[in-house]
């Protein structure tokens, strides 16, 4: 089956998942993002690439950071952007997803940025659209969050340059995390020799080791000698049933404290996709400490989303 993200020339026309993207495409996105980073230092912080294009931010699930950085990215590229908060809109009146899309397409949309609680919703939209329209997945269910994975890669590359000599640890609620999946795919594609996942059995997907990662249940053991620590948010709103005794108990075993971080390499960086639960998965002294690159991640997210939008819109 052909990859639904690529056009007949093998070029990226939708971004739905990092899974199935070649090293060349990932590098093209990261390199392009690097070129965009300098734009923020100029007098006019805009580029004409998407001038006259209409971008719809379709958020069927709430999000502040992702929606805002997509909006800034589209505006930096001179697009017209409309934010639709569908949770509070026509879907509650019974309209189907594809009817909503058809209506927006009839308004001459060029690009849809879609967040949806249902895994696969962006695929459905991409298959439905005419070829000159593009979809970027901004998070679908537990499945994927490719621009977050890419901005994590951009951040790691910014601080550590070479992916092929790194040990990266992803800690916490991997089971409910679309961020973790996207990052694991990207790291393996770029040749990172060791990716570890650290968490309790109940919060790791079954057969997670088939994704090419090493599994640790003991956080102290798993953090030894790592270059990058990626903390995941404890997804309170996604929890069903009693997977954990309590948030306090989780912090004791899997919360990142300065003492635990001391087991990683001295120049290790600490990342978090946000929003953070301070005192649940990460201690404030670490979140605000010298190893933390959590706020730079947000800034890099703009350049990465500019890169993805301009690449898909041009193909």
């Amino acid at each position: 089956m052909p990859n639904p993200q690529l056009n007949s020339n093998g070029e990226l026309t939708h971004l739905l998942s990092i899974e199935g993207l070649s090293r060349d495409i990932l590098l093209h996105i990261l390199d392009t993002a690097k070129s965009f980073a300098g734009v923020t230092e100029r007098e006019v912080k805009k580029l004409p690439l998407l001038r006259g294009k209409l971008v719809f931010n379709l958020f069927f699930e709430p999000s502040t950071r992702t929606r805002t950085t997509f909006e800034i990215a589209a505006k930096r590229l001179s697009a017209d952007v409309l934010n639709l908060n569908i949770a509070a809109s026509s879907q509650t009146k019974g309209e189907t997803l594809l009817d909503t899309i058809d209506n927006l397409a009839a308004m001459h949309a060029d690009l849809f940025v879609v967040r949806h609680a249902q895994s696969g919703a962006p695929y459905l939209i991409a298959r439905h659209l005419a070829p000159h329209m593009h979809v970027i997945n901004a998070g679908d269910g537990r499945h994927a969050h490719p621009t977050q994975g890419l901005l994590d890669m951009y951040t790691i590359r910014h601080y550590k340059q070479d992916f092929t000599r790194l040990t990266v640890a992803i800690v916490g609620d991997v089971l409910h995390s679309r961020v973790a999946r996207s990052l694991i795919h990207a790291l393996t594609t770029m040749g990172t020799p060791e990716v570890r996942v650290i968490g309790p059995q109940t919060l790791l997907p079954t057969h997670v080791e088939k994704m090419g990662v090493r599994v640790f249940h003991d956080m102290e053991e798993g953090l030894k000698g790592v270059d990058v620590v990626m903390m995941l948010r404890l997804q309170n709103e996604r929890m069903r049933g009693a997977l954990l005794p309590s948030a306090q108990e989780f912090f004791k075993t899997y919360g990142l404290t300065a003492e635990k971080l001391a087991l990683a390499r001295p120049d290790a960086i600490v990342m978090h996709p946000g929003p953070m639960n301070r005192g649940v998965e990460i201690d404030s002294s670490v979140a605000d400490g010298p190893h933390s690159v959590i706020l730079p991640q947000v800034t890099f997210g703009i350049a990465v989303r500019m890169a993805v939008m301009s690449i898909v819109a041009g193909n």
Partner: protein
Amino acid sequence: MQLPDAEELVAELARRMRPKLGPGTALVGILTGGAWIAEKLNAAFGGTLPIGTLDVSFYRDDFEEIGLHKEVKPSSIGFDVAGRDIVLVDDVLYTGRTVRGAMNELFDYGRPASIRLAVLVDRGGRELPVAADFVGASLAVPENTNLHLERAADGKLILSLHPHNA
């Protein structure tokens, strides 16, 4: 056809530009060939001019047709563009579309006092009202041919011809 020696053309270009440079003039080379030439020109002027580079990929007018160029390099202008006399440097002046993109991009850095254009080769074929202020040589190059500037391992610049679709 016989192509001129690119290094001699750079020297010729420097001779023509030297009397017309003011105290605050800056060179901006268009990547990649223009940036190589700007470096050599600056060396000929004693290495004293502020110098920058532009990648016009984000300002091209054929984005709709061909999408985003691969291997985009960051533009780098380390000086204040506002109020400055700028000489844009490129290798080959052809349709004029690259120069238009470069001027648009420069204005996003600030409002220069003036922009002049220096090119190694003017091959004609303009599609926009663009003219160079300094020209190394004018050449009649057949329409279905690319005129290309390359840099050898020792840093020497070389002009070459490539038929389209070859």
